[in-house]
C-alpha cells in the first residue's frame, strides 16, 4: 500500500497501518469481501463515467461556472463513504459529485444540479460546488476553501448536545490544511470531544501549487498532533485501504474522539475542467495516468479472479448507461422559472423583504415636475 515510487519522495506515505499485507492472498478472501470489492469497482466506475459525462456536458455548455471533478479520487470517495451509516452526516468541499452519488443521491439529480435545473439536488441554486441533500445527510459541498470545516464541527456539536450516536465526516482538500478555520475547528473538536472525522483528500496539488510548496509540514496528517487528535495517512488509490482507515476514523469519532485522516490520492486532470494543468511535467502526467485507481483496481480484481474482461466491460457499460441516463434526465428537467428568484430569500417571512428586480425602481417613478408644489 505504501507506494513510494508514486510519490517519488515528495509526499512520503506512512509506514503505519498496513494490515493489507496479510490479506492479499485471494484464497483467503471471503465471499463478502469479494462482493464488497466488486461493489467498490462498480461505484468507482460509476463516478468515473459520471464525471466524464459531466466534463462533456461542460464542453457542450450544459454546465456553467466552475466544475471540479473527482477523476483520480474514485477509490478515496468509495472507501470513505462506505464507512458511514445512513444517519451520519457528510460535509465536503466543491469537488463533491462522487460523494453525492455515494451518499445514495440519485445521479440524475446530481447531473440536473450541474445543468442548473429544477430537479437538481439544490434545485439549481448551488451548482457543481454546492450540492445538498438533507435526506441523504449530505450537508453541503462548499465553495470556500475551509468554509465547511467549522460548520461540520458545529454539526458534531449539535449531535453531542443532543446525545445522538451519529457522527460527522468532513472532507477537504490538501490546501485546507493551511487555512485558519481548519486549525480553529480541530482545536474546538478536541477540546469538546466531538464526534467528527476530518479527512484531508491530499491529491498533492492545490490548484497548481504542490503540497510541498504550500505546507511547511507536508505530511498533513501530522497536524492532528498539535490538537492531540489521532491521525493517520493512507494510500487513497486503494479503496480497501481507504475503507479500513475510514472505518477506524469513524469508530473513533463515534467514541467521541475526533480523528484526522489523510488520504493521498491523485488528480487525473486539471483543477477544474477548464484547467489544462500545464504546470505538470510530461513524466508526472504519465505517472499519474499509470496510477489511475480505476484501472489498477480493475487489474487487481482480474488478477484475483473476481472479474474477467467481459465482467469489466459489463460494469463499464452499466456505468456509462447510468451517466447517459443522468444526462438525459438533466437535459429534460425544466429550467427554473424566473418568478422563483425570491423563493429562498428567508426561511421566516419578514416585512420589507426586497423582491426588486434589477431594472425596477424602489418606488413608483416620480411624477413629472409641475409647478403645483402645494397640495
Amino acid at each position, binding site marked *: 500500500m505504501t507506494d513510494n515510487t508514486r510519490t517519488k519522495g515528495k509526499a512520503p506515505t506512512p509506514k503505519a497501518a498496513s494490515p493489507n499485507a496479510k490479506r492479499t492472498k485471494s484464497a483467503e478472501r471471503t465471499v463478502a469481501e469479494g462482493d464488497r470489492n466488486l461493489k467498490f469497482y462498480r461505484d468507482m466506475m460509476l463516478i468515473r463515467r459520471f464525471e466524464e459525462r459531466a466534463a462533456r456536458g461542460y464542453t457542450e455548455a450544459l454546465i456553467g461556472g466552475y466544475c471540479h471533478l473527482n477523476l483520480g479520487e474514485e477509490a478515496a470517495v468509495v472507501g470513505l463513504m462506505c464507512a458511514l451509516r445512513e444517519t451520519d452526516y457528510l*460535509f465536503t468541499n466543491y469537488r463533491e459529485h462522487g460523494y453525492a452519488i455515494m451518499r445514495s443521491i440519485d445521479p440524475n439529480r446530481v447531473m440536473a444540479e450541474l445543468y442548473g435545473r429544477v430537479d437538481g439536488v439544490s434545485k439549481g441554486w448551488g451548482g457543481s460546488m*454546492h450540492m445538498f441533500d438533507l435526506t441523504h445527510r449530505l450537508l453541503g459541498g462548499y465553495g470556500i476553501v475551509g468554509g465547511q470545516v*467549522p460548520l461540520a464541527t*458545529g454539526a458534531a456539536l449539535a449531535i453531542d448536545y443532543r446525545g445522538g450516536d451519529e457522527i460527522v465526516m468532513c472532507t477537504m482538500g490538501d490546501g485546507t490544511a493551511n487555512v485558519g478555520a481548519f486549525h480553529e475547528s480541530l482545536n474546538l473538536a478536541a477540546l469538546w470531544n466531538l464526534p467528527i472525522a476530518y479527512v484531508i483528500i491530499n491529491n498533492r496539488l492545490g490548484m497548481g501549487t504542490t503540497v510541498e510548496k504550500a505546507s511547511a509540514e507536508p505530511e498533513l496528517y501530522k497536524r492532528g498532533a498539535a490538537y492531540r487528535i489521532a491521525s493517520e495517512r493512507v494510500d487513497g488509490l486503494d479503496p480497501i485501504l481507504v475503507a479500513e482507515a475510514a472505518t477506524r476514523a469513524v469508530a473513533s469519532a463515534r467514541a467521541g474522539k475526533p480523528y484526522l485522516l489523510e488520504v493521498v490520492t491523485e488528480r487525473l486532470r486539471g483543477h477544474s475542467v477548464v484547467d489544462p494543468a500545464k504546470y505538470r511535467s510530461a513524466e508526472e502526467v504519465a505517472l499519474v495516468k499509470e496510477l489511475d485507481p480505476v484501472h489498477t483496481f480493475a487489474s487487481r480484481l482480474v488478477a484475483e479472479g473476481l472479474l474477467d474482461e467481459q465482467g469489466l466491460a459489463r460494469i463499464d457499460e452499466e456505468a456509462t448507461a447510468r451517466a447517459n441516463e443522468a444526462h438525459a434526465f438533466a437535459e429534460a428537467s425544466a429550467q427554473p422559472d424566473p418568478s422563483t428568484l425570491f423563493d*429562498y430569500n*428567508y426561511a421566516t417571512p419578514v416585512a420589507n423583504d426586497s423582491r426588486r428586480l434589477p431594472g425596477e425602481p424602489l418606488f413608483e417613478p416620480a411624477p413629472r415636475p409641475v409647478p403645483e408644489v402645494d397640495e
Partner: protein
Amino acid sequence: MSIMTYRQALHDTLRAEMLRDENVFLIGEEIGVFEGSYKITAGLLAEFGERRVRDTPIAEEGFTGAAIGAAMLGLRPVVEIMTINFSLLALDQIVNHAAKIYGMFGGQAKVPLVIRTPGGGGQQLGATHSQNIELYYAFVPGMKVVAPSTPADAKALLLAAIRDDDPVLFLENLALYNTKGEVPDDDTPAPIGKAAVTRAGRDITLIGYSRMAYVASKVAEELAESDGLDIEVIDLRSLRPLDRETLIASVKKTHAAVVLEDDWLTYGIGAEIAASISDGAFDYLDAPVRRVAMAEVPMPYTKVLETAALPSNDDVVNAIYQTLDAVGQRRQKVGQGHD
C-alpha cells in the same frame, strides 16, 4: 411593565428563552466563567451549566462557524461576539455561510442563529475597538440585522431574533447597556423589518438606529421644550430588511430629514437612507437630506480627539437647524409653505 436597563433586558430575555426552549444555547468568549465582557450573561453558567453556556477559545471564525453548523441541525445558538470589531474574524462564516446556506441549497437548510455583538465608540478603546461596521452585514441578502435602541426593543427584538429561522445579527451598543426604560412584562416579539415612529412630529424627520436613535429622541425632546420644535423621530430598529415605507411616509409629512449614524458617512447606512428618500419622496423634499455621521478616521484613543470624531448632540441640533433654514429659504422662494 418594569423599569430596567438595556443590559438587564438582554440578560432576562436570554434566560427566559433558554428556559422556554432546550435548543437555545449560548456560545462565545468569556460568557460563562467570566460572565461576559459586558456581563449580559452573568449568572447563566451557574444556572444552566456548560452544555447551555459554552465558553470558547479566542477563535471567532471557528466558534461562529460551529454555531452555524449547529443551527443547521436545528439548534438555536446565540453567539456572543465580544465586540463587532472581532466579527471581522468570522466574516467568511457569516457572509459566505450563514447568509448563504438557506438560498444556496434551494431552501433545504435553515440557519436559526443569533449573533449578539455590541458596536460603539466613545469608550477610549482606540481604532480597532470602536467601530460601527453593521453595514457589512446589513449589505448582505440572507442576513437579518436588528439594532434596538431601548430596553423594550432589546427584549422584543431579541425574542424575535431567537425565534426566527434565519441568521440574525443583533447589534448592541456599549453606550446603551446602562440606559434605562420601561419593558413590558409579556414576551411579545417585535416584528423584524419594521421601523418605529418613536415620536410623532410635523417639522422635520430625524432618523437613527441603535445609539443614534437614543440621541435622536433626546434631542427631539430638548428642542420641543426649548424651541417648541415638533420633530418626528424614526428608530430604524431593523437595518435588513429596511423599512423604507415608514421613512417615506414621514418625509412626505415633514418635507425634511436628518439621518444620524454612528458609522462612517461615505457608503454608510445614512447614504442608503438618503438615497431611499430621494427615490420615494423626491418631490416632497424642501431641503437636501442631511447626514450626521462619524468623522472618517481610525478612531483615536485620546479623549479630545475621540470626542471630536463622534457625532454629538450639538452636531445633531446644528444639522436640524441648518436643514430647517434651507427649508425656510426654499419655501420663501416658492412663496408658500406646504401646510
